[in-house]
C-alpha cells in the first residue's frame, strides 16, 4: 500500500493568537510555527502502517510558503519517505487545497490519503471530505482507530453519540482525530536522516489549479471579552451563588 499524507504548517497550538488591531488577520510575525497537531496523528498512523508491513511508501505533501519544508522534514523524520511542497505565499482555500491534492493523487496514485481532521488555524474541517468528493472515493473522517483488512480498512470514528466502526474499500480518504495514536518525537538521527530524503519544491502554478479565493475575508475580530473572574470565599458561598443562579434559570 502507498500512502499520501497531507500536512500543514500552522501557528503552534500552544500559542495564544492575537488579532491584529487593523482587523486584517492574526499576528504571525515572530510566532512559533509547527505541524498542525492533527496531521502529526495522520503521519504517525501512516508510519505505523509501514511498521506493521501493511504499507510500503509514505509520500508527504504540504501546500504553503517555503518554510513549510520544516513540517515536511518533521514528517519525514517520523518515517515519511519523500516530500512534496507545493509552494505558494498566497492564501489557499480548502477547495483549492483539495484540488491541488487531487492533482498529487493523480501523479502518485496512492491507495490511502491520510489527513488531519482539521487544522488548528482556520478550524475548517473540510479538506479530507472535499478531496474524497473530488475523487469519488469513500471517506472515513475523525478516525480514532484504523485496521487494514483484506483490501480495505476498518475505521473507528468519533461521532456525536460515541464511536462508530465502518469499513471502506481502498482507495480511501481517512482523517485523523487526536486519539488515533501517540505521535512519536523523532530522535536526532532520524531528523538528520530526513534531510537527505527527497523533497521536491514545486511552484503552485505547475499544477494548473485556479487558487483564486471564493470567499472574501472582510475582517478578523477578537472574541467578546469575558468580565474578569470573581473569587468566592467558601463552599457555602458557592452553594448560595449556585442556588441564586438556579432560581434565575427557573424564572426564565
Amino acid at each position, binding site marked *: 500500500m502507498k500512502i499520501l499524507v497531507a500536512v500543514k504548517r500552522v501557528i503552534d497550538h500552544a500559542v495564544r493568537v492575537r488579532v491584529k488591531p487593523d482587523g486584517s488577520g492574526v499576528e504571525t510575525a515572530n510566532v512559533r510555527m509547527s505541524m498542525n497537531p492533527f496531521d502529526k496523528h495522520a503521519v504517525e498512523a501512516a508510519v505505523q502502517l509501514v511498521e506493521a508491513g501493511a504499507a510500503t511508501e509514505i509520500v508527504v505533501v504540504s501546500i504553503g510558503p517555503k518554510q513549510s519544508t520544516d513540517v515536511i522534514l518533521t514528517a519525514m523524520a517520523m518515517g515519511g519517505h519523500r516530500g512534496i511542497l507545493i509552494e505558494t505565499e498566497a492564501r489557499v482555500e480548502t477547495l483549492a487545497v483539495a484540488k491541488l491534492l487531487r492533482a498529487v493523487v493523480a501523479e502518485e496514485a496512492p491507495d490511502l490519503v491520510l489527513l488531519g481532521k482539521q487544522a488548528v488555524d482556520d478550524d475548517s474541517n473540510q479538506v479530507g471530505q472535499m478531496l474524497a468528493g473530488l475523487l469519488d472515493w469513500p471517506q472515513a473522517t475523525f478516525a480514532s482507530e484504523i485496521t487494514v483488512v483484506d483490501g480495505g480498512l476498518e475505521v473507528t470514528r468519533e461521532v456525536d453519540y460515541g464511536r*462508530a466502526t465502518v469499513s471502506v474499500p481502498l482507495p480511501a480518504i481517512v482523517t485523523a482525530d*487526536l486519539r488515533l495514536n501517540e505521535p512519536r518525537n523523532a530522535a536526532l538521527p532520524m531528523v538528520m536522516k530526513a534531510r537527505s530524503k527527497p523533497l521536491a519544491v514545486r511552484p503552485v502554478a505547475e499544477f494548473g489549479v485556479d487558487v483564486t479565493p471564493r470567499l472574501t475575508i472582510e475582517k478578523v475580530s477578537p472574541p467578546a471579552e469575558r468580565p474578569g473572574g470573581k473569587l468566592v470565599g467558601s463552599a457555602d458561598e458557592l452553594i448560595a451563588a449556585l442556588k441564586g443562579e438556579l432560581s434565575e434559570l427557573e424564572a426564565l
Partner: protein
Amino acid sequence: MTVLVLAEHDLGHLSPATARIVAAAEQLGTVDVLVAGHDVSGVAAEASEIAGVARVLVADSDALAALAPDALVGLLLPLSERYTHIVAAAAATGRDAIPRLAAKLDLMPVTDVIAIHGPGRFDRPIYAGNAIETVSSGQPKQLLTIRASAFRPAATGNAAPIEPLLPTVGTVTKFLADYRTEGDLPDLGTAQIVVAGGVSFGSAEKFALVADLAKALGAAVGATRAAVDAGYAPNDWQVGQTGKIVAPDLYIGIGVSGALQHLAGIQGAKKIIAINKDPEAPLMKIADYALVGDLFEIVPALIEALKR
C-alpha cells in the same frame, strides 16, 4: 431564497440541534427540512412540528441507514439544484457531508457559522475561537454548517407537510458497529446546564462525582480532552475545539484548567463556575464564581446541599 436544512437525528429521534438550525436558516429564506435515513417517519413527524418549516422531505433507504457521506451526498446533489442554501448542524453528520457536497458542486463551504449577517455573509470562529472571521461569498449557492449552540431554537406547534422522496443512492461504506454512551443525561450540545470535569478526578469511578452533581442539577456532563484520553469519560463528552461546543446558561468546570482548546467549547456559556485548587488556572480567571479548593471536598458538599 430557499434553504434546505439537513435534519440531525439518532435512534429515531430528531436531535434538539435541528430546531436551532431551522431558526438560523429562517434568516436566509424559506426552510425545507430533509430527513434522510432508514425508518425515519417518526423523525419526520417531529421535524414537521418545528415552527417555520415549509416542508419536510423524507428520504428513507437502507443505503442511508448509517448516513454514510457518499450516500448522503448522492442524495443531496440533485436536490441542491432547487435551493440557494444547503445547511446542516456543525455536528458529525453535517461536518462529514457538507464539504464533500461542496467539492462536488465546486463551491467553498462556510463551516461552523455562529452569526448570519446576510444571504452570503457569515461569522465563523478560527484559532479555537480566539478570533472571529467575517466572510462574504459571492457564490451562487451557499453551503453551511451552523453551530446550534449559537442560535435559539425555533418554536413548535407547526404541522408542515411531509413529502416522501424516492432516493436511489448507494454507498460503498459498510457500517459495522457502534459504541454508545448509555444514559439519560440531557443533550450536551444544547443543555441549559453543563457540569464538566477534568483529568484530576483520577479515575472513572471518581469521575462519577461529575455525573452525580449533573443529575442533581438536571445538567449534561462534559469532560476535558485529558479526562477522555485517560479513559475517565467517553469521547462524546469532550468539550472544546475538537469536541462539542456548548452554550449553556450555566457551565460548572471542576478541576478543569481552562486550556485554550477547552475554552473554545464554552465561549457561549452565560455564567461560569470554576472549582480548582489553583487560583491561577485560566478558567478561574474568567469564571463568574471561582472557588479555590479541593474538588473531592467541594463536590460532595454541593451534591448534599442540592439534595436538601
